[in-house]
């Protein structure tokens, strides 16, 4: 089993793009005004989770 990946709560995401700008893997993209994490590229560094101003990103397991 791999590490848990970042997961965006679409109900909370306000499309500010902060997570995308700090992702070292270019693993996040904005799609229809919601951030989406590519599981393939996410390395679970947690930077996006810490950055999100509204707490819309968590780990997949939670």
């Amino acid at each position, binding site marked *: 089993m791999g590490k848990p990946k970042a997961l965006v709560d679409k109900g909370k995401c*306000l*499309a*500010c*793009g*902060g997570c*995308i*700008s*700090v*992702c*070292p893997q*270019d693993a996040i*993209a*904005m799609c229809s*005004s919601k951030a989406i994490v590519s599981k393939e590229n996410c390395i679970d560094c947690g*930077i996006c*989770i*810490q*950055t*999100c*101003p*509204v*707490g*819309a*990103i*968590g780990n997949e397991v939670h």
Partner: protein
Amino acid sequence: MKYDVVVVGSGPAGSMTARFAAESGANVLIIERRQEVGVPVLCGEGISKGVDEFKVLEGKRWLANNMDGARIISPDGTMVKLAADMAGDETGYVLYRDIFDQELARGAIRAGAELMLNTCAVNILKENGKIKGVKAKQFGEEFDIEADIVVGADGVESKIGRWAGMKTTLKPYDLETCAQYTLSNVEFDRAYCDFYLGKKIAPGGYAWIFPKGKDIANVGVGILASLSEPGMSLKLLDKFINSRPELKKGEPLRFLAGAVPVAEPIESVRDNLLLVGDAARQVDPITGGGLMASIEAGKTAGETIGKAIDEQRFDKEMLLPYEEKLKNTLYKKLKRNYVVKEIILGMEDKTLNMLADSLKDYKFDELSTLSLVKALVLKHPSLLIKLKPLLKLSRL
């Protein structure tokens, strides 16, 4: 589909670039992934009155409130008043940012640019390693937009630059992560934009109250991402509002999140490609204000592109005058302010309180380094050592 220039993003940087490129005769297409220019608003909506000098806006529909200046409130509540012309880029006017963006886009369209909504760039279009345009997507359908010059005006995400191999990824200590309500039914002094400092209020950033009218204001908190925890901006914003009765009775009309690069400007030019605005990190690192920088840089970018189209040369050398011109103007200020940002970040709340106490009665209209230093040090001599790096900077 073939254009001289494709601009990705219809914010102020994109529209200004498009406008001035089109005015110089270029065939320009702007693509915008949202369905309405300027919506949703992602901004505190403050701007310097210096915007008037660019003469790019018609009428005053975009203007919500005309400010007398700014007030900085230190952690212990000491207030320092600055007149609008001294207060940097964020105070002067408070905008309706959606209308503001639409007016700038209208200016670009009037100059001859085309604008395509609901159209997202998904990659750079390359042929034999050479940039030839962008791959775009509209309503699920992918297609190529060929262009001699690609402009990345795609904001804080700066994906165009990243796809072109530029280092646009931000370090968390170079990003402010923000939350803001537009609150109605609140009480405040409508003549001033207020900035609240303090580690408990906004670590590595500030809280703001930007009045949009008689009883309506943008109230927000921005913190440094490296000091943030998940959802911390919003939690601190709610705390800020709930601890102030004059704000607590307000009801929100709008809620937004924001991300503001507070980095140094980055490399912004490649063969057939140029970045502008937040995408190029053209933001004042102290205040997080990027509108004036975007407008100035967009104009310069558009003019440079115009010349490139005239000469039908799109290599890096041809586009470099854009960056060179900014290095002698805008970037000097941004780089200096980045150093100042780091100095301020290193200050304890106690130091900020002393600074505010020294400056609260200072007449900022007679601002000179010497008189400022005198005012600071006479009251709190220990500030001299703490401010040494700043004084060094002022001699540069």
